């Protein structure tokens, strides 16, 4: 397990920011990844559970999900788009969903995360608090720049709630983390398509040419070439399904 040498639970955002600005002080959300790690480097944990970051609220036509909202709470919240609830369920098994948070999911930027893919297609924006105050960034920018979490906190993730989503994936077993998955959302202004398993994080792609410029990694579950083929097949299926052709 992780080598944890201190634990603090701040009760204000200011205290939390001050703590995480110190060396080797890490924000602790649900703990499903951090507490399970086997890093031998000592860690100072700053537990965010004492902060008011667990609300799910509608704001300006979008849904604002506090960063400490757990996947379990998303699944049960009928205000959340059905696609995000489905993705949250498929993200982790039952015994980890009550712990893992949406903020932690964003911060981990797992390349295989279907929930992140779903947030991408829902035009998610991440509200971040840093030493210079609050800022909002598209989630795609955040996923590509994880160093920002060294001194900043995710406050919430806001998502568009309209449109319809379709998922396609290929894994070793039906509930396995997909080797490649494609999530496509159709909304008033067109399509959004995101793919997992083809880059270091889930990526938004052009639905008309989804595999252009992809250079998937290889591992024991799938070679780069195979992942590329899956991306082509699965993206095509989501579009066909969306258009009712299949």
């Amino acid at each position: 397990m992780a080598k944890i040498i201190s634990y603090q639970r701040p009760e204000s955002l200011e205290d939390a920011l001050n703590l995480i600005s110190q060396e080797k002080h890490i924000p602790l959300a649900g703990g499903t990844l951090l507490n399970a790690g086997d890093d031998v480097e000592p860690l100072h944990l700053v537990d965010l559970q004492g902060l008011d970051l667990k609300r799910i609220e509608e704001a300006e036509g979008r849904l604002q999900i506090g960063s400490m909202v757990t996947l379990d709470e998303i699944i049960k919240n009928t205000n959340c788009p059905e696609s995000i609830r489905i993705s949250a369920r498929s993200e982790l098994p039952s015994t980890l969903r009550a712990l893992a948070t949406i903020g932690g999911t964003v911060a981990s930027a797992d390349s295989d995360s279907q929930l992140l893919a779903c947030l991408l297609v829902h035009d998610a924006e991440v509200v971040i608090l840093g030493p210079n105050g609050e800022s909002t960034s598209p989630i795609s920018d955040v996923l590509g720049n994880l160093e920002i979490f060294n001194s900043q906190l995710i406050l919430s993730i806001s998502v568009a709630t309209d449109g319809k989503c379709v998922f396609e994936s290929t894994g070793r077993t039906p509930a396995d983390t997909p080797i490649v998955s494609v999530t496509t959302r159709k909304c008033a202004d067109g399509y959004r398509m995101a793919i997992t398993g083809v880059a270091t994080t889930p990526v938004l792609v052009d639905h008309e040419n989804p595999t252009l410029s992809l250079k998937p990694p290889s591992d024991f579950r799938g070679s780069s070439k195979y992942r590329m083929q899956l991306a082509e097949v699965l993206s095509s299926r989501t579009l066909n399904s969306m258009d009712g052709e299949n």
Partner: protein
Amino acid sequence: MRITIELNGQKREIDCEVHETLLTVLRREGMSSVRFGSSSGETGASAVLFDGRLASSEVILAAQADGHSVITLESLNTEASLHPVQAAFAATGAMQSGYSVGAMILGALQLLEENPTPTETEIRDMLSGILDRETAYVKPVAAIKQAAALLRGEEPEPFRPLILKPMTDGVNAVEVDPNDSPPDASDAVPRLVPSSEVPSTSVVGQPEIKVDAVRLVKGNPAFTADFDIRGLLHAKVLLSPHAHARIISIDDSEANALPGVHAVIHHENINRVKYASGGQSYPNPKPHDQVSFDNKVRHVGDRVAAVAAETPEIAQEACNLIKVEYEILPAVFDELEAGKPDAPVIHDEVDTEDIADRDRNLVHQIFAQRGDVDSALESAARTYEQTFRVHQVQPAPIEPHISTAWLDSDERLVVRTATQVPFHTRRMLAPLVGMDIKDVRIIKPRIGGGFGAKQEMLIEDIAAHLAIATRKPVQLELTRAEEFFASRTRHPQTLTYRTGVDSEGNLVAQELKLVGNTGPYGTHGYTVQTVAGLRGLSSYNCDNKRFDCDVMYTNIPVPGAYRGYGAPQALFGLEAHMEDIALDLGIDPIEFRRRNWVKVGDELNIAPHLGEHGTVEEELDEYPKVMSNGIEECVAQGTRAIAWHRRHDESWKNPVDRPHIRRGLGFAFCMHGTSIPFLDMGGCSIKLNDDGSFNMLVGATDLGTGADTVLGQIAAEVLGVPLEDIRVYSSDTDVTPFDTGAYASSTTYISGTAVKKAADVVRQRLKERAAMLLDIEIPCSIELRDKRAWAPDGRSVSLEEIALDSLHLNEQEQIMGTGSHVSPDCPPPFAAQFVEIEIDIETGQIEIIKMIMAVDCGVAINPVTASGQVEGGMLQALGYAHCEEIVLDEKGKMVNPSFGPYRIYRADEMPETEVFLVQTMEDSGPFGAKAVAEIPKDGVAPAIRNAILNATGVRINELPFTPERVHQALQRD
């Protein structure tokens, strides 16, 4: 730091360290139902209700829990009676080892509180975070449904087998009507097809609740980790980062200086005593190529040193402080590469003897032959040759290996350990620690799954060395990653079958050439490959057979025993090979097998030539014969249940609404063994108590299989009492009789017969004492039933009266009996394995829709536990075929040593699973029983392979059927 939690409704202030998990703290607080499975929480064995939500306590820091509510299974244990959810789990046989049952029951409580009528999908979703290697989730789902009914105030149907009419006369095949289908029933219910040859019984054959059910559903202390011991030290092992290296120097000074460290052991301070770790009968097969600590490491994860310290964290830190200088050597991982001239020599030490050819890494050459294979192949109408490759997997018991060792007040060594082989462990451990066998005691508590991984003296010597070095109790528990690469795995193999058939489709010759990969140590290397030859060449009649095998050393994590023991590998090749021959000949694949499979009266003509201690070259005067065989009934039941006629229905195979999907059905014929003849031995003693009940001591080892229950049922049947009057205590080398252990599908057959013999002795004496009390001259005329001894004239005396008379009043004596059994026979169980699959031809992804096994295990002593064995076996076999694999990088390091990357099936993705128990009367077994434990491992992989062939016309001869492998095959063909 100090935290406050509401534990089971009561506020508690608890001192803890910042790094400690909630699991650690809960166990320290006495919550034994919360159990370790992995530090990343994905087994779910540690799950509790955390603020009312099911959550793995391994990934919650105790500090995070400050101010929160925690509910454990102990919250239900305020009364002697069971909560309805606990009762439902007991009634449906929903737990085998019961290691994770606490989490399942808590999850059910939460689910049913929110939703009194959950769907099966919702139940399976709740179970998705609790991995189970034993039940295939079938009976836990049924238990939760039953609990829901109970909590709604309904009276659920009693959980009993569904009795089916036989479809055959037991001998001849029948044509199954495509319009016929079996009666509808829950997947969890065993379908029992009775035989008229089986006599009526009262306790045997009944779905009795397991004798340890209360202990398990209450989460009472049961497993090795559950027992506190004062002053316990914790051990950690420094493992090799290299696949092959010589240890040039080892410096333990910093580790020894670390506060809290009590001992550091390694090859420089532990005696070099040669041994082989496989848990097998005396004398252990050679070569004895291991020592507790060596000056050479032979795989990533091999032992280098071990530390005992006051906490696991200190022990781990001390391991990190040990400075080791290695000379890194070239390594080899593939069994076909290991024998080449440029391959490194893995055992170059002079003190390992009996390696067949150490310079070629050839451990053993095994050869057995009947008839004249070459001539028969030459004259055959057609010959076929195919090569198959099977991979490395891990048994993955949810309870990792764990041992606690200490010196008792007489300074004898006691080891409480999760082992399948307590008596072998005692015999093997004593010389390693320089003690006599009489000064070593092995206690086996409940085991959280073993499946062969614990048929080994694996870590007991480390715990014992450290206990002796420190004179303190020491516990060693493997991490999940260590369980993967530092315990035991299934042997990879390359198998080549050559078969000749005559013009009528009869086999005239069959040869299996096998190259087995035993990794860096022999352990079970000889016997697993021998069993592969035995099982791979026994299913079908043929006068000319040959097994030609090389067993190779390599630098992969160590293979050993794994449920099935060579048979799953061999039968994958055999049943794929037979399918292909049938199709080439234009004969229905089942009909082709039928022409050739062994029937009642047929000789098992290669079995005696492939023994545990060597091969036999000369022809024997007599060969064992098949004495019972229910395969025709199995095939009939299975073909009806799977709707086998669909395999030729193109509209079903190619659904128009899903153009990228193909459907297929697959079949495999399975034949296994029951125990090892002339070798496996079990013992039992039974004594009468004052109240007419009995204490029964057995050396047999219940891994969660239900062995204690089944053995108790056998005794109860003989003694005419209910099962509750038999108190079973098993596997303590100081107390119970000897038993070889839980392996080779032997417990019911061997230990069960020992129980029957002991019970017969007691019954005889009970009759004699009853005759005295009833003044009857002929004791044999007395019958025992309903806890009484009955005279022919209708008078009776209770067993309690006999007990009180014999213990206290007249001609006092302890009525007791002992029995032991070794069998000359090895009656094969038979099974028909069917699967239905869908395959995505654009991605290569396979989905298994349904698995059906119809099995002839003789008389199932307990049909619920027997069907549970089949369900769990099929789950493991499914993983073997489809998704489980140990993947090594180019340096021999495992890249996927955790659940998730190493994929095992979850509850929410399991196919439909049905079990048919086809009764036959096996006269050599207790009350007609044969084995059931291992045969479900044999047929799933070839049946899926044959289903892929049926669906697509593509043959895949390598496991597992991962999407990319299947996709490549589809592209290729």
